[in-house]
C-alpha cells in the first residue's frame, strides 16, 4: 500500500538525517492575554482523540524498527537523582554515544548513521562531567537549572544557576515554571519569569517544564503552554518526572495543539518534550504518532521532539534485537546506561 504524501506544515518535504536541522528560533512576542483567555479545551473530546489513535496508527516490521531507532535519537537520556555521581553520569554519557549494540545496527543496515541519543540531561552539578564525557560526539548536554524540580528558589538564584550551567557548557536548559503563577492565573508573572529565563540562556535552547501533573486541568496546561511560547520557550515540556502524574498522551495532545496554534499565528516552530513515565517501546510509538498526526513530519526529529526518559532506551534495545533475531531479548544482553 502506498504511503501518504503529507506535506508538512510549512510546505517542503526534506529528507531528514539524524542530528539537528535548522529550525528558526522562536523570537517570542508580547503577552497576548486575549489569546490566552480565549483558549478552550474540551476534556472528553481530547480524551476520545488520544483513545482512538492507537487503533488508527501502528507500525510493523521494518517500519517499527525504524520508528524506534528514530525515537532513540530523540531521547534526552536522563539522570536526575539525589545519588548521582560523576561515574554514574560518565556511564550514562557512554550509553548516549553508543545507544544500540553495533551488531544490531549492522543487521538493521543502520551502522553507518552514527546513531546517538538526542542529549544527556543532568543537574547543574554534573554539566562539566557530561560535557567532557561527550566531547566530540556532538551530543548536547541539557541541564535542569532553576531550582529543579519545585522551582521555588529565589528568582535571581534561578537566573544565576542558568548562567552557570551555560557557562559550564550546557547547550540546553530545562527550566521549571512557578506553578503558582498558573494556578492563580497570573499570566503576566509567568510570562515575565519565562522571558527572564530565556534571556539568561543566551544561545542555549530553553525547554519550559510546565509540571502538568501540578496544573491539573487541561485548560491550565494549554494556557501555560501558550504563555511560555510567547515568552520565548524553544521547547515546552510536560514534567520534571517528580510530579504524581507525568507525561500522558492527553497532556501531549493539549500541548502540541498549542504548539500548532502558535505556529499558525507566528510562524515559529516550537519543540515538544514529554518526560517521565514513558518506559515502554510501544508507548513511545503512540507519542510519535501523535506528533506526526497533529504537528507533522518535522516534529519527529530531535530538533523539535525530545523524550525525557531513563529506562525507555533499554526496552527499545530489546525490541530491536527481537526484530533482528525473532527471539525475545533480555536486558542483560544490552549495555547498561
Amino acid at each position, binding site marked *: 500500500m502506498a504511503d501518504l504524501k503529507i506535506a508538512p506544515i510549512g510546505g517542503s518535504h526534506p529528507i531528514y538525517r539524524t542530528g539537528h536541522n535548522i529550525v528558526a528560533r522562536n523570537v517570542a512576542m508580547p503577552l497576548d492575554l486575549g489569546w490566552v483567555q480565549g483558549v478552550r479545551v474540551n476534556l472528553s473530546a481530547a480524551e476520545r482523540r488520544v483513545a*482512538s489513535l492507537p487503533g488508527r496508527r501502528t507500525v510493523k516490521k521494518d517500519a517499527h524498527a525504524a520508528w524506534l531507532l528514530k525515537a532513540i535519537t530523540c531521547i534526552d537520556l536522563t539522570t536526575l537523582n539525589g545519588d548521582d555521581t560523576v561515574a554514574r553520569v560518565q556511564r550514562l554519557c557512554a550509553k548516549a554515544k553508543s545507544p544500540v549494540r553495533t551488531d544490531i545496527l549492522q543487521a538493521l543496515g*543502520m551502522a553507518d548513521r552514527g546513531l546517538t541519543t538526542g542529549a544527556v540531561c543532568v543537574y547543574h552539578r554534573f554539566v562539566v562531567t557530561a560535557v567532557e564525557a561527550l566531547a566530540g560526539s556532538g551530543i548536547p548536554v541539557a541541564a535542569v537549572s532553576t531550582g529543579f524540580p519545585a522551582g521555588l528558589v529565589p528568582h535571581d538564584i534561578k537566573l544565576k544557576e542558568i548562567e552557570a550551567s551555560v557557562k559550564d557548557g550546557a547547550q540546553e536548559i530545562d527550566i521549571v515554571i512557578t506553578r503558582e503563577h498558573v494556578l492563580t492565573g497570573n499570566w503576566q508573572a509567568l510570562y515575565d519569569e519565562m522571558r527572564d529565563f530565556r534571556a539568561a540562556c543566551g544561545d542555549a535552547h530553553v525547554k519550559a517544564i510546565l509540571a502538568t501533573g501540578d496544573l491539573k486541568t487541561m485548560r491550565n496546561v494549554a494556557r501555560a503552554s501558550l504563555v511560555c511560547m510567547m515568552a520565548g520557550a524553544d521547547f515546552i515540556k510536560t514534567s520534571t518526572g517528580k510530579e504524581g502524574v507525568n507525561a500522558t498522551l492527553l497532556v501531549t495532545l493539549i500541548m502540541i495543539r498549542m504548539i500548532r496554534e502558535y505556529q499558525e499565528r507566528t510562524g515559529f516552530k516550537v519543540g515538544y518534550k514529554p518526560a517521565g513515565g514513558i518506559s515502554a517501546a510501544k508507548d513511545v510509538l503512540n507519542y510519535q504518532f501523535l506528533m506526526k498526526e497533529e504537528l507533522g513530519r518535522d516534529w519527529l526529529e530531535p530538533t523539535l521532539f525530545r523524550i525525557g526518559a531513563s529506562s525507555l532506551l533499554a526496552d527499545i534495545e530489546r525490541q530491536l534485537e527481537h526484530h533482528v533475531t525473532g527471539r525475545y531479548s533480555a536486558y542483560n544482553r544490552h549495555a547498561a546506561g
Partner: protein
Amino acid sequence: MSVARYFDEMSYGPAPEADTEARAWLKRHEAGFGHFIGGTFVTPEGGQYFDAVDPSTGNILGRVAQGGADDVDKAGAAARKAQGPWAKLPGHARARHLYALARAVQRNARLLAVVEAIDNGKPIRETRDIDVPQVARHFYYHAGWAQLQASEFADQVPVGVVGQIIPWNFPLLMLAWKVAPALALGNTVVLKPAEFTSLTALLFAEIATEAGLPAGVLNVVTGDGSTGATLVGHGGIDKIAFTGSSEVGKLIREKTAGSGKSLTLELGGKSPFIVFDDADIDGAVEGVVDAIWFNQGQVCCAGSRLLVQEGIAETFLARLKRRMATLRVGMPLDKCIDMGAIVAPVQLERIKSLVATGVAEGAELFQPNIDLPKGGSFYPPTLLSNVHTAATVAREEIFGPVLVSMTFRTPDEAVMLANNTRYGLSASVWSETIGLALDIAPKLQAGVVWINATNLFDAAVGFGGYRESGYGREGGKEGAFEYLKPKAWSGRKARVVSEAVAEEVAVGGFDMPALDRTAKLFVGGKQARPDGNYSRAILSPKGVKVGEVGEGNRKDIRNAVAAARSAEGWGRATAHNRAQILYYLAENLSARAAEFAGRIAAMTGVSKAKAEAEIEACISRLFSYGAWADKFEGTVHTPPLRGVALAMNEPIGVVGVICPDEAPLLAFISLVAPLIAMGNRVVAVPSERHPLAVTDFYQIIETSDVPAGVINIVTGAARDLTKTLTEHDDVDALWVFGTKENATLAEKLSVGNLKRLLVDHGLLTDWFDGQAAEGPILLRHAVQVKNIWIPYGE
C-alpha cells in the same frame, strides 16, 4: 522498503490484520451459505445464490442464498412455532440465553471483526474497537431486560414474530440492535440482512446455535430487496422493524397499511454539526472526523451538515482541511487507516454523482491530496463548502464521506438552519458554554443530540429519529417498548358499526320552537364558520335531529393545522402550567355536568346514568392528565462514559386526532388530554355521528385559559378529514380511532412526511377502562424521546 528508508521518511508502512481464521471459515462454506431456519442451515427453495463481494478488491468471498417466498414462509413458520415456548420461558431463562450470546460474541470477537471488515469494507479498527464490543454490550444489556421483564413490564406482552430488515452499514451491530431486544422480551425473529453484507449474520447464527439458542428463535433469510418485500408482506409476521433508507421505509409503511403489523423505522438523516465560536475548535475538528469520516460516512446519523459560526468559519475550515490531509484511506484490514472502502460500486457512483451535482450547483470542493488504494471502491474524504440551503447536497443524504458546510450568525439562526430539513435523526452541538449548549439541544428536531461529542452509542440509550428519520427507538427502556404491546389492548374486539339512521322529519307545530344552535368549528381559539358553509344534521339513534354541525373541509383543516403550528409556545409552557389548565377544564366541565350528560343521552340514546358516568369519567380523566402533565418525565441514562444521557420526553408537535363514535366525549378527552398534557397541539375531529358534546365543549375550552390553537376542532366526515390530515405534511402525528378502513387509509397515506401513527385498526377500546384508555399506555405515544448526551469533565 528498508529500515533506513523508513528511518528517513518516517512513513507508516503496511500493517495488515491476519485473516487466516476468516478465510478458513469462508472456505468451509465454499459450497454456499444456506438460510438459517429452525436452528439449522437449509438450502434455498429456489436454489438461487448470489455473490458476497469484498468491496476493497472486488473479490468474491462466498455464495449467499437468494430467499424467496417459500424460504420466508418456512422461516416465519419456524419463528411462529418457537414464539410461544420462547415467550413462556421465565425471564431468567431468556436472560441466560442472551448472556450466553454476549459471551459467545466476545469469544468470537476477532473472527466477527475480520469477517465484517472484509464483507463491508470498513476498517478493522472500527469493527474491532466499536462494532463488535457494542454488539456484546447490546446482548448483555438486554439480558438484563429479560431478567426484569416480569417486574418492569408487567402490563405488557411480546409482540410475537418480528420481521427485521437491516442495512449494510453496520451489518452485525444492527443485527444486535434488533435481535437483542426482540429476543429478550419474548419475541422470535426472521432477520433479513442486507444483500451486500450477509456474512456476519450467518456467522452470528452459527455462533448462536453453538451458544445453545433454541431452534426457531432466530431465523436468517438472506436475499435482495425482493426478499425483504416478501417478508414485509408476509401474513405470519406481527411486526416489521426496519433500518435503511427513507425511500424504502416509506414503501414499507405503505405496504403494511391495514395489515395490523406494528412498525418501527430507523431511516436516513442529514444531521447538523453545529460549532459555536466558543467551542474547542481542535476538539470539534476531530469531532467532524468522527461524524462524517467514520465508516466512510455511511452512517445514518452522520454529522453531514457542518454549521459554523461565521466569526470562526475561516479558521475552522483551515484546520479541518489540514486534518483531512492526515486521514489515511486503505484496505479494511490495514490497522493503520482511518477509512476503508465504500460498500459497493453502486454506492460509490451515487456519491460521485451527488458530489458532481454539488459542484455544479456552486459548492467549493476540497479533497486532500492523499493516495487511495487501487482496484476497489474507494472515495476520499470530501468537503463541500459555501453550500446554500437549497443545494441538493445540503438536502439529500449522501451516505458517503462528504461533508457540506454553511455558516450561521446567531444561536437562533443555527437552530433554524439545523432544523431546516425533512430529517431529524441526530445533531452535534459544540460550545464550551454550558448555558448555550443546553439551551440549543432541546430546540433541535432530532432524536439524539450530542453535546461536544458525536456518534456516541450505547445499549442503554435510545436511538431513533424525529420527522422523516423514522419512528421508534432502539436501546434503553424506551426501545424495549417497541417489542411489547399492552396487555390491555390484546383482547380488543372489532368495533360493530350500526347502520346510519334516516332522519325523521317532524312537521313543526305551534309550540315555542327550540332556539336554533348550529355549532361552528373551533380554530385558533375562536368559533369559526366552516369554509364551505355547509352543515350536517346530527341525529339521535331514533333519527330525530338533535342539532347541526359545520361540515369541515380541506381548508378548515389547513386553517386548524396552521393555528396549531403557531401555538408552538404550548410545548415550552411549564408542565405545571399545562396541569393547571387541565384541572381547570375538569372544573368547568364539572360545573356543567348535568347539561353535558343530557346532551350525550339525547344524542347517543344511552341511559341517563350511563351518560352521567361518562361525564364523571371525563372529569376524572382530565384530572389524571393534569396529574401526569408534570410526572410523565424523562430519565437519566448512565451509559459507560463520564457523563450522562438525558432522555427527554418531548412533544411531537401538531397531532391530528380522529375520534370514534362510542363514548363521544370521553373518547375525545381520553385522546386529546394526554396529547396536550405533553405539550402537543391538537387538531381533533370529533365523532362523526355524535359530535355535539364536543362542540358544546368549545365553551369549556374558552373558559379554561387554554391558549388559542392548542385545541382545534373540525367536525365533518371522518374519512375525508382523516385523508386531509394524513396528507398534510405539517401534521407530525395522527391518532386514528374508528373504522378499520380509516386506519388503513391513514397508514397508507402517512408516508408523505412519515407521521407517527397510533391507530386502533377498527378495534374497540373500552374508554371507561383506565387500564386500556388512560396513562402511560397513551402518554408514550404522545411524546418522542430525545436523548441528549452530555459528556463532562475539566
